[in-house]
């Protein structure tokens, strides 16, 4: 729109937006808009870079704090640097099973897993969710194992994910109904395992259902779902949960 173009050629406005953006004082929606606009308007992008650079000394002299030892491991797991295939879902169930039994998938899967037990009997299945897409077809199975506190994901029907986006998994709390992130789910493989941190484990313990959404690359920056819902499913607590919680 011509008026819009003219608006963002106003030097004073550009300067104001760039300053407030770098200072971090804008509301989230404005920040999101500026993030998009800076890709369209070079002058705005340049002024943001200018202010970033000018304030950089404040960051450069910040004293270091050692990250948790688990943080790098969690990042590597999330990015699938060292992929391990602990899950045995894939061997137990074929794709057709889910597609043919969408309505009863939760029940059958839970029952089957309960009876069959995982490979490692010292690491019992503690929690299970089968998530259905908008057509109520099973799309993803999420499970946690009590002893190792591992989150195991199997994508049954991998949704189309644009290059600039990521799939993010969320937990809805039973207690406060708030939705909180369990991180981005890689789509390079249909099976994905990663350890859960203590806060994540507490989220699982209090979970009502799981939610999968399409978010910006790397996950929603505001800590809550912003994108399209891909699939959703209730959580089932399995035997062995309480003795391991």
């Amino acid at each position, binding site marked *: 729109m011509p008026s819009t173009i003219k608006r963002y050629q106003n030097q004073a406005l550009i300067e104001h937006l760039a300053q407030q953006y770098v200072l971090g004082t804008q509301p989230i929606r404005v920040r999101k808009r500026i993030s998009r606009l800076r890709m369209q308007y070079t002058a705005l992008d340049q002024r943001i870079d200018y202010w970033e650079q000018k304030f950089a000394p*404040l960051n450069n002299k910040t004293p270091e704090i050692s990250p948790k030892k688990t*943080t790098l491991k969690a990042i590597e797991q999330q990015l699938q640097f060292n992929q391990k295939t602990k899950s045995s879902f894939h061997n137990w169930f074929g794709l057709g099973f889910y597609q043919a039994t969408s309505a009863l998938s939760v029940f059958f899967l839970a029952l089957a897993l309960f009876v069959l037990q995982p490979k490692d009997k010292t690491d019992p299945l503690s929690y299970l969710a089968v998530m259905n897409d908008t057509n109520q077809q099973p799309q993803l199975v999420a499970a946690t194992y009590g002893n190792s506190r591992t989150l195991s994901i199997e994508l049954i029907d991998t949704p189309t994910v644009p290059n600039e986006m990521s799939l993010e998994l969320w937990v809805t709390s039973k207690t406060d109904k708030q939705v909180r992130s369990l991180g981005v789910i890689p789509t390079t493989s249909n099976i994905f395992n990663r350890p859960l941190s203590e806060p994540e484990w507490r989220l699982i313990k209090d979970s009502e259902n799981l939610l999968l959404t399409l978010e910006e690359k790397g996950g929603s920056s505001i800590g809550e779902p912003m994108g399209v819902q891909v699939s959703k499913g209730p959580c089932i607590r399995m035997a062995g949960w309480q003795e391991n919680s």
Partner: protein
Amino acid sequence: MNKENLPDLIAKVALRDQQAFRNLYEQTSGKLLSIAYRILNNRDNANEILQEAFVQIWYNANEFRAAKAEPFTWMAAIVRYRCYDRIRSENRRVESKLTTDTNEDEEHLTTNDQATTLLCDIGQQLEDCLNQLEQLQRDSVLMAYYHGFSRDEIAIKLKKPLNTVKSWLKRGLTRLQQCLAQ
């Protein structure tokens, strides 16, 4: 942190070099976590932001342009913006931290005659220009940038009307810009 090899590491990360990514993490995560912590005042949340930021760095490394920004400035911006979004969306802070640690930090930020002040370490030009601002302008700018305070939070903390804080920020940054351009 060896800043000289950061452009090379980011370039390798853009090519999906996992070892380069680990080296980049080893070199920068301590400072990036500190930046997140000073804004969020919560170590668990700061570690979560650090994790999210490095995932974003992995995916977006090919967007880094050395001609536009210093590598660490680019990475720090990713962390800071995620922190700002997190606290704005959660709209909450650890109040005890807000009223204790922050006060101590602000003393460091705004007291000019202490040998150990932060301003003495942040680079001569920025230090000189910040010192030329009126104290409340300087405090407002630093509370926003350094601690991630919203304008509302600054107004509450300094017990001033919101519009006054907005005015301080606007005038402070304008004066800062004029000074930095000299």
